[in-house]
């Protein structure tokens, strides 16, 4: 049970830009235990997608991992040559994206695309691959799977396309599936179906690293949550714990910003200001610009990510010691 599917420690990603280097991911450590769904939550530019890409080894140039290690099932993979890593992708770990349309070939039938993925990773016959494709389509609950095999991507709805992507990611039963905002482009009723499907996959033995900005989605499926802000993990706890008692002012702001379906209200809670520009981060805590409790110390030094109690870590001076 406490075997780790994925373990990331001190991961740092650097992008050189014209105006100086930026660090979209800075000293990020996280763990995905086998048989669980772990969530990363944060806003655009907080580094959550970049973390996922770095783990997959899919960073777009000129981005580079400058520090840190990634262990997949106990095996260090950042130092592996590109050829070895390519073998891991698809076999041991897969990824699905927010917009499935851009990751599918628009002029190729979806069945054929999954078939090719199967033949690429295993050496089975064409017939065998066809049969497996149909099985996979049924497994990801694509209705009328036989007829969908010969559809082109644009003929499918967004939800079906995402299912096809999941089918393709599941070809080799990877240990880890990274889902980067998998339901953001989908309607709520479809979103609920896809989340259900991810839970089925987890139960079948694939751990999931789920990236989302939607606290509702996180609450529904994740066991453990990491909150990221401006490239750093600012809070980490089990889902129940975090939703019950968020400690970082940013997490608390996020929770207060959630709009209720049950009752209306006069004014909505907000987090003031804007998401920071990574080129112009403040000297101290990245959140100090927007923090209602910002003190002098916060403006000068970056707090460490410290455990306030077992399994709950926060990066904030105010929260140290567990009290406000």
């Amino acid at each position, binding site marked *: 049970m406490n075997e780790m599917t994925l373990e990331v420690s001190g991961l740092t990603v650097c992008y050189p830009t014209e105006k100086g280097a930026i660090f979209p991911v800075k000293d990020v450590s996280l763990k995905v235990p086998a048989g669980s769904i772990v969530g990363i939550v944060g806003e655009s530019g907080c580094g959550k997608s970049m973390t996922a890409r770095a783990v997959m080894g899919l960073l777009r140039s000129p981005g580079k991992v400058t520090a840190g290690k990634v262990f997949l099932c106990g095996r260090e993979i950042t130092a592996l040559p590109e050829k070895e890593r390519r073998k891991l992708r698809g076999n041991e770990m897969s990824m699905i994206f927010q917009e499935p349309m851009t990751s599918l070939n628009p002029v190729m039938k979806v069945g054929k695309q999954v078939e090719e993925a199967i033949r690429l990773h295993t050496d089975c016959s064409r017939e065998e691959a066809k049969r497996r494709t149909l099985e996979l389509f049924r497994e990801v609950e694509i209705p009328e799977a036989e007829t969908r095999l010969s559809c082109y991507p644009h003929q499918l*709805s*967004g939800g079906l396309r995402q299912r096809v992507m999941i089918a393709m990611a599941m070809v080799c039963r990877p240990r880890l599936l990274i889902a980067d905002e998998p339901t953001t482009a989908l309607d*709520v*009723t479809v979103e*609920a179906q896809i989340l259900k499907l991810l839970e089925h996959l987890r139960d079948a033995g694939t751990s999931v690293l789920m990236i989302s900005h939607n606290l509702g989605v996180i609450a529904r499926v994740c066991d453990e949550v990491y909150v990221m802000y401006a490239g750093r993990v600012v809070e980490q706890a089990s889902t*129940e714990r975090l939703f019950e008692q968020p400690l970082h002012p940013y997490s608390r702001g996020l929770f207060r910003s959630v*709009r209720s*379906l049950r009752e209306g209200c006069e004014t*909505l809670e907000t*987090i003031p200001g804007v998401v920071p520009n990574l080129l112009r981060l403040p000297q101290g805590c990245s959140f100090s610009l927007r923090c209602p409790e910002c003190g002098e110390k916060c403006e000068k030094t970056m707090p460490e990510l410290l455990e306030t109690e077992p399994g709950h870590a926060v990066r904030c001076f105010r929260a140290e010691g567990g009290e406000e």
Partner: protein
Amino acid sequence: MSGYLLEARNVTKLFPAAGKKKVHAVSDVSLQIREGETLGLVGESGCGKSTLGRLLIRLLAPTSGEVRFRGENITALKDSDFRRIRKEMQLVFQDPYASLDPRMTVRDLVAEPIETWRLCGSREEVTDRVRELLRAVNVPEEFLYRYPHQFSGGQRQRIGIARAIAADPSFIVCDEPVSALDVSVQNQILNLLRDLKTSRKLTYLFISHDLSVVRYLADRVCIMFLGKICEIGDTEEIYTRPRHPYTRFLLDAVPVPDPSVRGKEIRLLKGEPPSPADPPTGCRFRTRCPRATEKCAASEPELRYIGGVQAACYYAEEGPA
């Protein structure tokens, strides 16, 4: 005769599709918006809510039916006669990145409506008015001569809103104004829209797929499915006691940020959404509806009053299936 600010009567919009098919983006929709109220328009992608919004402010012409503004049929007006009404109706766009001309400064962007309607005399007066508007939407005046790409999404949306209110319109269609923004910024914009509504006596049509956004802003809400209204009425009433099965599914599907409800099984909608080019006979929701009967396939239910709200379902009185 009618005391409504805006009224749609049997509005239908067909788009030509591949082959000789026609896509029914909006079919036979009638609704009324009172002065000073906010009507929320909710539905999933492809249900025709954006098209309906554009039909109401005559950015698109309906295939049949008419739209009335202050009792006047604006569908029948000539372009030249419509111009005086154009000023009254504005649109706030979904994507603040695409809806601002990248080559214009903030000042010129906000000044455009003022200059178009010749609301101010000299250049200085225009600039002063732009400053005033920027203050109203909380964009610091120092940024008058910056370009849109230098701003974050939320700031850009504020500039878009400043443009929309610049000519003092009475009716604004907000087309998913926050769905492209970060969570922490969304509420800032929603609060701003709400404040502006009271301070400038605006009437909104608020289009969104996000039920919680509509919950906050709308006095009445209209749920659409595949170009048709399923249910329309008081927001409070519909959110607490949805009549139409589709509304129930929508409300149930919204992920609630509360891990304690996780154990509870949520009801999932079955099957795939039907194609708008080839809608099912009878009720359009029946292929996915758990209570559909032969009656639903045979004829289409009309909107009818059930305790203060209107719903288009034969079994609206009967509670969840």
